[in-house]
């Protein structure tokens, strides 16, 4: 089976119908077919975390999943999370804390951070470091990112930053 396969899925709340080659991975499908270039490609083998997106509520490496596997799935990318306002508070703290430099890891980092914040209301720094340990950032040295996630968690729990 090497010819195009029909898929229908939900991406950021929009229904998408497409014909994709079986070998096409989700990252390339998002970037090249749908022009959702906020999902970045860093290593193409599941290590760096730059391509992290949400599929059916769980974060996945979009370079390690094929588009044909996603028939009927719901996919959310950084564009969707930004437009819906779901992570507006997290992004605001990232800005104030300068928790990004070149910004290439940031969409994946925000995806992973939001995933943790949804799972656990007030994670400590060690837990944050652990949860983000699959997302490579070459610029910041991580501390500002850890600070920003910690601050957001406290704010969401109703404490002052």
């Amino acid at each position, binding site marked *: 089976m090497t010819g195009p396969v029909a898929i229908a899925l939900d991406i950021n709340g929009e229904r998408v119908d497409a014909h994709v080659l079986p*070998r096409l991975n989700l990252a390339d499908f998002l*970037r090249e077919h749908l022009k*959702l*270039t*906020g*999902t*970045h*490609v*860093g*290593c*193409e*083998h599941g*290590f*760096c975390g*730059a391509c992290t997106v949400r599929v059916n509520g769980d974060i996945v490496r979009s370079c390690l999943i094929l588009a044909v596997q996603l028939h009927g799935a719901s996919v959310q*990318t*950084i*564009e969707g999370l*930004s437009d819906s306002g779901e992570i507006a508070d997290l*992004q605001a703290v*990232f*800005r*104030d804390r*300068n928790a*990004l*430099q*070149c*910004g*290439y*890891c*940031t*969409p994946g980092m*925000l995806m992973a951070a939001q995933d943790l914040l949804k799972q656990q209301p007030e994670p400590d*720094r060690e837990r*944050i*470091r*652990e949860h*983000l*340990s*699959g*997302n*490579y*950032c*070459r*610029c*910041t*040295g*991580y*501390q*500002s*990112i*850890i600070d920003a996630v910690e601050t957001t968690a406290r704010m969401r729990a109703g404490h002052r930053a």
Partner: protein
Amino acid sequence: MTITSPNPETLSELDRPNSYIGKVVPRPNLERLMQGRGLYVSDMELPRMGHVVFLRSPYAHARIIAIDASEARRLPGVIAVVTGDDLAAVITPWVGVLSHLKGLKSAPQHALAIERACWQGEAVAAIVANSRAVAEDAAEIVTVEYQELEAVTDMRTALDPQSPVIHASLGDNLAFERNLDAGAVNAAFADSDEVVEADFIFGRHTGATLEPRAVLADWNEAERRMTIYQGTQAPHMVQNIAALHLRLQDSQVRVVCKDVGGSFGIKVHIYADEMATYALSKLLRRPIKFVADRIESFNTDIHARDHRCKGRIGVKHDGTIMAFEIDDLTGIGPYSMYPRTSAIEANQVVNLVGGPYLTKNYRARARVVFQNKNVMCQYRAVGHPIACSVTEGLVDLAAARIGMDPVEIRRRNLIGDDAYPCASPSGLRFELLSHHAALNKLMTMMNYEGLRAEQAQLRNKKIYRGIGIASFIEVTNPSAAFYGVGGARISSQDGVAVRLDAQGSVICHTSITEQGQGSESLTAQVVGSVLGVSMERVRVILGDTDNTPYGGGTWASRGAGIGGEAALQAAKILRKNILEVAAAILQASSGELELVNDTVVNATDGSPRIELNELARIVYFRPDTLPPGIQPELMATRHFVPREYPFAFTNGVQACWLEVDPDTGFIKLLRHWVVEDCGTLINPQLVDEQIRGGVVQGLGAALFEKCIYDERGQLTNANMADYLVPMSGEMPDIDVGHVVSPTAETELGAKGAGEAGTAGAAAAVANAVNDALKPFGAIITEIPLTPEVILTALRRI
């Protein structure tokens, strides 16, 4: 703070009302990046764009006998398969030498290999197709017949008579040698009470930017013009080099640099595959895009720091350091990189060893040799980590030999804070440094005595913790002395144009570039402060050779110090021009007026006179209402280049607190401290984050990162699973403090801060490991400090 403003009674440009200088303000470009709306080269597409994939040599050294691409050319979607000879008709080869590095030699390098491949990963053919996937399919069915040649891999034997000479025309494998002999070294060692020697070994590593190198070249045959979209730190340099080798005028090449996914010196060089991409666009008359994949990044992004350095220090019982001596050897791959050359790192090592200390007795030899490995060149903190690790390692060994505390020996030997200006034995000129103030501040921040007590207590429980200290100096704000004097057309000046628009907002065009450091922010902060305009009204344009002033870009920690000063001077002219127009409108004298909060106000009492919006309206739309003869000029341009000092040196000191598990060899980083002095802090948060990011790159080198080659020159860990980089789980929190000694060469007073973290981190870690292992009598002078290295030193494996 060590010094204050020389004229404290008058306000300087930096402390005007509503100044942004020294304030933490968010960078203007962050929202775009956080929402996934950035524009990196890898995101870009153009009509009729072809994708190029390079077929790369699987051998470290091989003759190319034949290339058969007939089957690949028939694959649907393939546009062209191009070899070195085809491309040589379009682009000329280059030689990476500079005249001020006397004796440096290299061989002509081609965009695609011709006849011979000299490292595993050198491109031997280019496959262009309508998608990258198709180009990769086609690459798999191109057959290349190679004759494998003997490879030179070990730098230690590269100069042996029995080693093959990689480039016969050069006669041998020695690219460059520098010798320095300052003071009276032999006498100083003879007078020393103790002489300590060590061999320092540094693992070859690389920048591992998260966005790989990417370029999109668009030759428009109708316009006879090339537009190059590239993630580069130096757009005007790329413009010049591309034009030169495509036989074009600079004016026929435009380089556009949008968002860049990390650079750190990786993206400041000219790579053969990027040159090939420009040439392919010209050959095929259409846009061609190249994005390296991760394996290509490891095999072709410049590597760095492959050094072996013998070091020697002489010391008196009272702690006086009598002399330093080094013999450094480094292997740079088969070619010196272009146009900055691969001799700069070794040259920097010679320059920087012993730099923080008083002794004038210093002898050095550095040799740079060719080998059949990937090219090596300047990566963040060029030479600094080597020089710092050797110097600080030797100082600690000397302290241990005479039984002195590592902090105490530094106190007795660091150049005094009142000794400036002065010069190092290697001729570096220091305007104003603050080693002692920095060390004192560090002691307080880390509670040195408290940690020593904790260390002693834990040692009784067989918990082995160590403290490592590393003082350093850092090269920033380079003048033409770095590259220009050697003949490279790499600008050391930068320019900023500032313009007041018709609604009273400000547009700045600057020749420095942004890769996340905060170039855009610092420019807006400086311009906003000088003009009295809120930052929201200031827009900064960078990275476009058609639209910004000519300049060097962002590298070697020059953006804030040089580009920032140009912004300050341009804004001062614009302010003067604005106030002159305001005076004409208000029938006042410009000396009575001032600009504050987007408004022209009375200088005496601050009462508002005319909003900038209204002033701009009059100037642009109702100039007929201005007094006769007034020709307003609401745009100003200024350039700046340092002329007094070749480099603005900064200084600092780092400390590391870690724990070594003697059973597993694992190191746990517990805390890291940095005190540095980059002069005026334009945005303290951005400086701190530069330091932290730099430290973590240095920690990666100290603990994990190494390009592992086998004896045949095969890179065995060219992927991110096997080449370990620092991740959030292993990294410590890093405390950053500052001493502020502004440079008097500029009004802004800013020096660079980009290298400081990387410069001293590995030295601090290595010293801390040796401190932790003191009870075992083990001394390690090799990085990365992997568990294997630790356990070997402990004789447990």
